């Protein structure tokens, strides 16, 4: 008899989601996490009294997270203290135009009208389009996409996908350009394509729904984003889930093409009926399972995946109230420059001379994140690859911190330079080391047309029995609510099979 019914490797949001549901289904479940923190990219760490969110800094669409908590017999609003972020963003474009995006669609239309009156009508049409699309594609994120029959089912239950080929077979840039004529307005709505890991001209058009989705509400969890995974863990433990941190898995034990247990780095072997992985599919198959267990076609497929983007993050503790107006401030560059950056800098392993990105003023939403009178600022910097042409990240760190603080002080956060008490930078190399993600890509695999749904690593392994995958490298993709959905998909598959 096996030691556990289920072993889950990795306590990211996907792993926690599926592990807590396994416990709810009455299965003896063990969740193993190599780090001392749970939550993966959605974790919060403390440094000298400042609490920094490692990656995720807000959640959109709390409904999908609430769906998980409902399955566990509670509600996200009961378990996590969510603060509404309104306005969702302040955008400062490269030409200095400042625009606020309140949750209210009418208020946002007024803001757009201040820049371009002719785009107000376009904004309402844009919202109408995506409202219709989302109404007709609600179940997409909760359905498996492991084979053609799953795809047929997705299309059947999400009729909007067939009715809107223009969103599937066009780029983000095409969709934004269709509804908005003014370049500044286009710029203010285009940065979000990077959340999918691609510039506006390569990102699929349907993801232009993100600027619409933001009007459904944007939330921050008091105490830091890490409170969300902590809440899932707490509820899971009440249901019998066992969580072990600082316990790294060295191998998944395979017998007769069947996953039967795991071997820890200290040599301990633990057996289980079902193994679920919440680590990157490439790491799982190549490092924990081994090429000898994989058919050639699987190896070819795995090697063909391109990594999603990563961006260095600058974490700062400051001893004044920064002159910012919202939880998030996007400092953007024109759409053409974003595309050019991708081809001429990012793809050539270079780095931006003038930064663009997101300023997350998390202590603006929760003052408890910093000592009294102090604040926390987290800067998501321009995307960069793990390779750095002509140098290395460790060498560049001090200069990059200094030049970024200088630039932000001059252009976006007056007084910053004089008030920084603590500043540390996480580069793609740090993300790879800390989170054990290949190339430090926080969204795992590029989310383009050829790497989604049935072309993304299957949530039920096609070459190893009793093995399942959750997290950003499988369907539906990266992001906190979406990886939580991947956990719900696998929990449903397992429940259905048993």
């Amino acid at each position: 008899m096996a030691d556990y019914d289920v072993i889950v490797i990795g306590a990211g949001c996907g792993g926690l989601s599926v592990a807590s549901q396994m416990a709810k289904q009455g299965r003896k479940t063990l969740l193993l996490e190599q780090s001392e923190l749970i939550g993966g990219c959605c974790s919060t760490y403390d440094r000298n009294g400042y609490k920094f969110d490692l990656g995720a800094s807000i959640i959109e669409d709390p409904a999908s997270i609430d769906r998980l908590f409902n399955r566990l017999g509670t509600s996200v609003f009961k378990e996590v203290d969510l603060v509404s972020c309104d306005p969702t963003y302040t955008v400062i474009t490269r030409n200095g135009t400042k625009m606020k995006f309140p949750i209210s669609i009418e208020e946002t239309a007024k803001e757009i009208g201040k820049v371009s009156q002719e785009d107000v009508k376009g904004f309402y049409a844009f919202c109408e389009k995506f409202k219709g699309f989302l109404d007709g594609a609600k179940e997409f994120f909760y359905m498996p996409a492991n084979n053609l029959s799953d795809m047929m089912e997705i299309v059947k239950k999400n009729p909007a996908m067939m009715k809107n080929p223009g969103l599937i077979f066009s780029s983000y840039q095409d969709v934004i350009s269709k509804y908005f004529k003014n370049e500044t307005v286009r710029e203010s709505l285009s940065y979000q394509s990077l959340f999918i890991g691609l510039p506006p001209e390569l990102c699929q058009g349907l993801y232009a729904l993100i600027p619409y989705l933001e009007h459904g509400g944007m939330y921050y969890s008091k105490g830091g984003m890490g409170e969300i995974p902590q809440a899932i863990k707490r509820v899971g433990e009440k249901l019998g889930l066992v969580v072990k941190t600082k316990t790294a898995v060295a191998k998944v034990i395979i017998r007769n093409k069947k996953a039967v247990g795991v071997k820890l780095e200290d040599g301990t072997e633990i057996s289980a009926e079902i193994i679920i992985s919440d680590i990157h599919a490439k790491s799982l198959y190549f490092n924990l399972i081994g090429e000898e267990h994989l058919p050639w076609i699987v190896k070819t497929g795995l090697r063909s995946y391109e990594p999603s983007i990563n961006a260095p993050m600058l974490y700062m503790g400051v001893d004044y109230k920064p002159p910012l107006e919202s939880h998030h401030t996007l400092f953007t560059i024109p759409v053409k420059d974003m595309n050019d950056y991708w081809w001429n800098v990012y793809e050539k392993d270079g780095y931006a001379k003038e930064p663009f990105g997101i300023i997350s003023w998390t202590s603006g939403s929760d003052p408890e994140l910093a000592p009294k009178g102090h604040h926390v600022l987290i800067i998501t910097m321009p995307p960069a690859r793990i390779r750095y042409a002509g140098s290395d990240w460790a060498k560049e760190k001090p200069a990059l911190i200094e030049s970024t603080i200088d630039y932000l002080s001059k252009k976006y956060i007056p007084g910053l330079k004089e008030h920084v008490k603590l500043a540390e930078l996480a580069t793609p190399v740090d993300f790879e080391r800390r989170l054990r993600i290949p190339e430090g890509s926080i969204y795992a695999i590029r989310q383009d047309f050829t790497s989604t749904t049935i072309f993304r690593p299957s949530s039920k392994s096609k070459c190893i029995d009793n093995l399942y995958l959750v997290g950003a490298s499988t369907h539906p993709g990266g992001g906190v609510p979406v990886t939580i959905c991947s956990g719900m998909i696998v929990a449903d598959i397992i429940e259905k099979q048993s």
Partner: protein
Amino acid sequence: MKKILFAAVIIAGVLLVTMMPKSKKRFWWEIIRQTPYLIPRYFV
């Protein structure tokens, strides 16, 4: 007749690609570039 039709299709295709904006070309090129991997990816 068949040859004329074939030539017309090729010319139309070349014209379409030539007249396409650069960003559209790049979008479709990325899809075409990755198309050979679709079958292996389906088996992962």
